[in-house]
């Protein structure tokens, strides 16, 4: 029972991380049809920046903010300097993001080297949380914090998309971009804001991931693959879909790893295949 409970919690805490990464990915895709293959590189770069910010400031929350802002600015710059000139050419944009991911990965390897980095959690959340319950005596505090952060981000995203003017424009753009443009909205500004938000979320997730797991070359590809699967299962462009997809994939990975370690990776892709076969647009996607 203890084991089952812990593994379920592990699945949910992993899902929290996947959700934060995938929600940014899906927002950018929904609005701009840009499949950003550099999203994983943003995650890893955000983690490294968070590590450096923590070394400099000693404050974990500052590190999270620094990673979010730095990667958001990078995202906005890319949108304004590169992607805006390739409007409507999705394949070229995707190829450029692929190139970017390779270039960023090599630059990071050059600068931070091949070793493993871990971001120290804030002192209050280090080590296990002793619950005093027989059924689950101890659980990593930081993983619980991640669930909290993911819920807060989910709620903020929802408020932003439904209650602010920019949010409404983004939703309108997801549904019908041409009509949004025709009604006089400066779509490039909306695009830049969305790209910045999506990239920033990846950077922020990098710090969370670097705290409960670790940062090393290769993490970028792993997290990119995970978020691709999550948004394909959840439905490209749907934030709710990315939350549901993240929970499904997170739980599948953890149950798989714990109960059938050798075939753990299989379940993720079984879910992917079933969804693609039965509902190709994803669980919450629109056809």
């Amino acid at each position, binding site marked *: 029972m*203890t*084991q089952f409970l*812990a593994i379920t919690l592990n699945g949910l805490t992993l899902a929290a991380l996947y959700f934060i990464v995938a929600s940014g990915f899906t927002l950018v895709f929904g609005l701009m049809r840009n499949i950003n293959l550099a999203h994983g590189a943003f995650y890893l770069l955000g983690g490294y920046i968070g590590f450096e910010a923590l070394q400099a400031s000693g404050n974990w929350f500052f590190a999270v903010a620094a990673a979010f802002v730095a990667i958001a600015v990078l995202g906005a710059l890319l949108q304004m300097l590169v992607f805006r000139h390739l409007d409507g050419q999705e394949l070229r944009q995707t190829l450029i993001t692929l190139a970017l991911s390779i270039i960023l990965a090599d630059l990071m*390897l050059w600068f931070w080297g091949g*070793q*493993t980095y871990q971001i120290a959690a804030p002192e209050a959340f*280090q080590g296990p949380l002793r619950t005093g319950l027989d059924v689950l005596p101890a659980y990593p505090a930081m993983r619980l914090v991640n669930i909290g952060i993911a819920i807060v981000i989910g709620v903020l995203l929802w408020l932003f998309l439904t209650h602010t003017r920019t949010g409404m424009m983004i939703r309108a753009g997801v549904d019908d971009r041409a009509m949004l443009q025709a009604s006089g909205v400066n779509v490039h500004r909306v695009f830049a804001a969305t790209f910045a938000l999506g990239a920033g979320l990846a950077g922020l997730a990098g710090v969370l991931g670097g705290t409960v797991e*670790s940062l090393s070359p290769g993490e970028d590809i792993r997290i990119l693959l995970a978020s691709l699967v999550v948004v394909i299962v959840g439905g490209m462009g749907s934030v709710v879909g990315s939350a549901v997809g993240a929970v499904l994939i997170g739980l599948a990975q*953890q149950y798989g790893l714990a109960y059938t370690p*050798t075939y753990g990776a299989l379940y993720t892709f079984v879910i992917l295949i079933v969804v693609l076969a039965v509902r190709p647009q994803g669980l919450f996607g629109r056809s």
Partner: protein
Amino acid sequence: MTHKPAKLAATSAAVMLAVSPAVFGDDEPLVIGTMATLEGAFASAGEDGMRGFEMALAEYDYEIGGREIEVITESTDTTPESAVNAAQKLVSVDDADILLGPLSGSEGIAVRDYSRNVDGVTFINGASAAQETTLRNPSENFFRFSTDGAQWMAGLGTYVVEERGWDNVATVAEDYSYPYSQVAGFLYEYCDAGGDVAERFWMPIGTSDYSSIVYSIPPDVDAVFVALTGADAVDFLQQYRDAGGEAPIIGGTNTVDGTVLSAEGGQRDHLVGTPSAAPIPGDWDDADWTAWVDRYHEMFGDDALDEPSVFAHAYYTNARAMMAALDEIDGDIDDDHANFQQALADLEVDTPTGPVGLDENRAAIANMFLREVRQDDDGNLYNANIGVTENVSQTLGLPRDEFLALEEPSRNHPQCSEIR
């Protein structure tokens, strides 16, 4: 890219070798082709391996019997195909006389198989440490002066049972050949000394989230034997502690090596006291060893690692043996390497970690080291030497037929019942 068939490559190399002395005389340099992983995640391991290689050649000023030595290096990426491609290129395009490498276990098996079909070129290992390469079905033409992953564990199993009193452990390791041999190497002694295995966990390589495994480890074990490398080790050790796991750790060779102990950011106080075993001694006040480490730092300065890795040590040992054998025969390999290969087979070479010789399968017999993680005055973790196991052979002291009768290391083997 096209590849010539191995036979054609072999023939052309042999022709070149037969022709070259007559045409160019003995002034033609001796060409040594080296292979190491100089790209991807194992780039730093490959670079350190090449440092060890350079140290050995520098001792002879890149010259043997008046003949200059030319080195041509090819990068591989830990896959067998990349190693065979590199070996073929070095043999057929660069006309290498001797090949030294590769770095990883499955590369080593592939290069061994390739070496069977190549005459007139001698193959010497780099750092690859698969047991299989020399234990079963060895190649006449592949010499390994470095040791395998099972040998590296020598001394550890006995030590944890007799000195620490741990006789009920769980094992956690990655799911491929090298960790199989590390777990096996540990269990051969551990089971013999009276220990039992509570449960074995095999993780896909590159797993980041070990939290669910952590909760599957029986809480009443005396210790957890962990054979993970790099980021996998860092992740597991951190997550085990975060989940409230309190059993001490027993380290495989890479689990508590320099890359893990120096991993940035983590707080790993609970690792102090962790025993492990390796082909290099850690912090050891032996004169030969400290002189070698000092020379390593002198030659490579800021580029060097804090302490030479097992890769630098293995490439050095193999290159040192190659040079010693060449020196014995004055660099004369024109008899199709017969003299040279005989010299290699008979060699007992002095290394910073003691004498190294070969068994009948051309696999190394060498000293192994027990280490313990300690903390220095600045709070940095390091491995201190706590013991030496001398002259460890590939069959770990067992008669060869008895050792071969054991099942090959795998997820379920060896069982303690098979050993006792």
